């Protein structure tokens, strides 16, 4: 896992945490520091920082802004109150307006009704006057027959027109005929000359009058019409209409209706107590006129209406407070004037609806204001929370940025450090794919990092001779789970040279404890290894010459040693000849003695060499053949490894010891193994195999050393053991000869055969000890 990845995942984790924190904050869980496991100290510190900051900020704000806040709040309350009041006012006005319109309509309809009554009955007297009997009666008032006829006519007229009464008067005010002529309260004979409607009609005018009947005592609406004969007024026809029906219909309405005359006296009212009461105090003249005309009967005084009136300018209506049926009520009143009759109609409407409407509007406005206020508060709260969150977010962003920067720095530092390393670093994932290499490793294998990244085994730098070993090592490393370990490995550089390395591999464990692969540090130990090999070779060389001089050295030493006595012999012989010619007998004898002595010496040297190869029987001992083989392989170990030769052994079980000299037997084996090595030098490493086999055959042990080389040419098989025979340019040709001599000295035989599959097999036998 590269460091970038770790970086990114870290940032992701921080973001995730931040998200979670925000949600917690929203849900109100995170006011205090969290109780959950916080893994990131940065986030935690950022949070606490934000919390502390916002707390101190709000405290200082509270202190600094308290009076401003109060001012603002009271202003807001004031404005709200005003607005509510205005809304109430507006609703009231609107309701009033509606009411007034309704009143106007009601008044109009009432006025129309009244006008209708007047219009309906207005022409009746005139129609009645047109009857010739009426005219005749007025000319002849004493004609009883006529009078009787007119009476019947008027009665019939009255019945048909649904009026209260119809009567006709002479110019001096005496009633000549009436519709109620045969009832108890008959107008006939009565004089109504003082009545205004009579006087006005006498003057030739059509006249209206409301008043209480003089005869009947019941109020009624009098319409009078002059009866003309030509231009002369000869009488007056009057019709009386009762307004009781109208008044009764008013009494049924909820709100009072009042009709007043031109003097302000109420004569029709839905409220009976208000009848014949005056709006304003009446003047003396008016009172006198009323008394004289007997308009409202015998009453002489008129009480004031128990009304309290509040007028508002600019409005046709006014407020009216009055006690109705024992209850103080408020009304909206509207007056309409009926000009032809001189009356004024007052219609009212209960003000309760208006106040109700205002109250409702006020309540509604207050509710609305409350809702708005709450919404505002909520919005403010939301804003504050949002700004807090944004603050925290910004802080976190900054932290993350800082952190990222730090990580980048660390990354750059690490990169520089890794590049500066001389040790090669390589990381692999669990599938064995290379996920990381540093520069030193690239230099070591000669491949660029982009060529190596993602590579799966076999890697390009694996040595072709060691593929099996890599697999084993790799399996070993996979099995070695959590334990770091090291092994030696030979790899091949891109340019073909071998690099010997020591590889230490340790598992990569991630934060969850999972194994994500392996990290290997690779140390180039080629130079060290070569030095070790050289040292080892030298040691081996020393060991070998100490144990047994090599064949060439032995020959050289032998030659040198033999040369000495030989030359001495030659010298002595020549000297002896010289001396003999000089006849110096004593010196001659001495020289001849020396010659014998030198001959003896030469003989001893030869003897010694023989004795060396064929030691005395006393130096033989019981030898473990397998130990001899093992030790020989140890001595040749580095040689075998360098040439990558595989040695297979098939050793007999329970091998008894043989009789022999261990050092000499080792020499024989080393010689045979070296021959085998040299025979396989040109083969590929994978084919270089030496097999060693031991067998027990009766009283002898057979030891075989086989190689996979080309074998011995058939024609030369007989000669390989001959002294000074060699197929090698630098060979002395004594090795196999000495081996055979040594084996024979042990009482055994050394033979060679070629295998069918190729290669030579050397076999020698040894006798068991005892």
């Amino acid at each position, binding site marked *: 896992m590269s460091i970038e990845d770790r970086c990114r995942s870290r940032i992701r984790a921080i973001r995730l945490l931040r998200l979670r924190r925000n949600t917690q904050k929203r849900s109100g869980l995170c006011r205090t520091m969290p109780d959950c496991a916080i893994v990131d100290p940065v986030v935690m510190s950022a949070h606490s920082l934000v919390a502390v900051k916002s707390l101190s900020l709000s405290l200082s704000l509270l202190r600094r802004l308290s009076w401003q806040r109060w001012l603002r709040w009271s202003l807001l309350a004031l404005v709200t109150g005003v607005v509510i009041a205005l809304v109430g006012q507006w609703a009231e006005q609107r309701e009033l307006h509606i009411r007034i319109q309704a009143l106007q309509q009601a008044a109009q309809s009432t006025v129309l009704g009244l006008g209708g009554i007047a219009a309906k009955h207005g022409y009746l007297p005139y129609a009645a006057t047109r009857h010739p009997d009426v005219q005749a009666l007025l000319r002849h008032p004493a004609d009883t027959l006529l009078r009787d006829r007119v009476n019947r006519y008027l009665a019939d007229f009255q019945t048909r027109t649904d009026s209260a009464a119809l009567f006709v008067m002479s110019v001096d005010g005496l009633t000549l005929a009436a519709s109620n002529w045969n009832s108890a309260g008959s107008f006939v004979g009565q004089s109504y000359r003082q009545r205004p409607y009579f006087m006005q009609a006498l003057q030739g005018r059509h006249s209206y009058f409301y008043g209480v009947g003089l005869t009947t005592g019941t109020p009624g609406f009098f319409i009078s019409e002059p009866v003309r004969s030509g231009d002369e007024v000869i009488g007056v026809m009057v019709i009386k209409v009762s307004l009781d029906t109208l008044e009764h219909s008013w009494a049924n309405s909820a709100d009072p209706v009042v009709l007043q005359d031109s003097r302000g006296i109420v004569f029709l009212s839905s409220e009976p107590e208000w009848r014949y009461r005056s709006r304003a105090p009446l003047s003396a003249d008016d009172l006198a006129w009323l008394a004289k005309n007997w308009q409202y009967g015998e009453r002489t005084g008129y009480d004031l209406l128990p009304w309290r009136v509040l007028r508002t300018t600019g409005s046709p209506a006014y407020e009216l407070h009055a006690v109705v049926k024992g209850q103080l009520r408020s009304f909206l009143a509207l007056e309409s004037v009926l000009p032809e009759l001189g009356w004024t109609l007052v219609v009212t409407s209960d003000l309760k609806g208006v106040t109700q409407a205002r109250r409702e509007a006020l309540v509604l406005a207050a509710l609305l204001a409350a809702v708005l206020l709450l919404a505002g508060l909520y919005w403010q709260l939301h804003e504050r929370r949002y700004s807090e969150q944004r603050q925290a977010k910004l802080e976190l962003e900054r932290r993350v940025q800082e952190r990222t920067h730090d990580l980048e720095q660390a990354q750059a530092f690490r990169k520089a450090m890794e590049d500066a390393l001389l040790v090669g670093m390589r990381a692999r994932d669990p599938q064995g794919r290379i996920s990381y290499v540093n520069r030193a490793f690239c230099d070591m294998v000669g491949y660029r990092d982009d060529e190596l990244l993602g590579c799966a085994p076999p890697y390009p730098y694996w040595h072709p001779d060691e593929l099996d070993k890599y697999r084993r090592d790799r399996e070993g490393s996979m099995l070695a789970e959590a334990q770091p370990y090291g092994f030696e490995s030979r790899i091949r550089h891109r340019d073909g040279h071998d690099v010997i390395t020591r590889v230490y591999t340790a598992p990569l464990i991630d934060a969850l404890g999972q194994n994500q692969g392996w990290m290997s540090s690779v140390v180039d130990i080629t130079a060290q290894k070569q030095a070790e090999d050289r040292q080892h070779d030298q040691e081996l060389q020393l060991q070998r010459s100490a144990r047994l001089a090599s064949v060439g050295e032995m020959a*050289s030493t032998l*030659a*040198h040693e033999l*040369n*000495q*006595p*030989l*030359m*001495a*012999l*030659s*010298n*002595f*012989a*020549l*000297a002896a000849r*010289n*001396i003999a010619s*000089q006849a110096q007998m004593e*010196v001659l004898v*001495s*020289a001849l003695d*020396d010659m014998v*002595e*030198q001959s003896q*010496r030469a003989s001893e040297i030869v003897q010694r060499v023989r004795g060396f190869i064929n030691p005395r029987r006393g130096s033989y001992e019981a030898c473990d053949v397998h130990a001899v083989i093992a030790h020989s392989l140890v001595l040749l170990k580095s040689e075998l490894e360098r040439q990558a030769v595989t040695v297979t052994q098939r050793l007999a079980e329970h091998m008894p010891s043989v009789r022999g000299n261990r050092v000499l037997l080792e020499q024989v084996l080393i010689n045979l193994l070296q021959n085998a090595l040299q025979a396989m030098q040109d083969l590929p490493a994978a084919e270089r195999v030496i097999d060693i086999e031991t067998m027990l055959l009766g009283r002898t042990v057979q030891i075989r050393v086989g190689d996979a080389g080309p074998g011995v040419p058939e024609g030369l098989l007989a000669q390989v053991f001959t002294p000074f025979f060699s197929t090698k340019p630098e060979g002395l040709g004594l090795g196999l000869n000495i081996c055979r001599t040594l084996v024979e000295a042990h009482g055994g035989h050394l033979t060679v055969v070629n295998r069918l599959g190729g290669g030579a097999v050397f076999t020698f036998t040894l006798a068991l000890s005892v």
Partner: protein
Amino acid sequence: MSDTALTLYVVDDDEALRRSLLLLLFSQGMAVRGFESGEAFLQAIDARQVGCVILDLRMGGMSGLAVLEQLRLRHSPLVVLFLSGHGTIPMALEAVGQGAFDWVVKPDTQQLLEKLPVALVEAQARADALALWHDLTPREREVARQVGLGQSNKEIARKLVPACSPRSVETHRASLFAKLGLANDNELGRWLTRHTWLG
């Protein structure tokens, strides 16, 4: 020029071989001294003597080559004849390169007896040359060396200590040519090359 008594030495660590050589050479009428090691030899003799030494190449202690090196350092006029085995012939060749006169392969006594007189003639020549050299004044020897290096009179005059005029160099040159019996610069050069041991 008269025959100087030339000394003959045998250096060999093999007692029998040494004794046999001494007896052989003695029987031929030569004065021979034997040494059992190179160290003993170098300690006992005067390196400035003229003579011939038969050296064994392969000895315990100082090797023949080491002895030769010591003699060369001491500007010895001794003529060196090596005894070499078959295996040490490359060594013998190297020794000749370093100033040895010749070598004899063991155990060929006949060859030794053939080469020894030639070596003795060389030793005599060296004895004569040494005698002539000793006749020169130190100044003349110095001039001779410089002439041998191919320097002009003027340069020699400047290099000499104490310095002198080219004319006096010319005088020395004439004198030394007369003493050594040489005719010109070339002959002197050859003579000096032949006797590098003069130092």
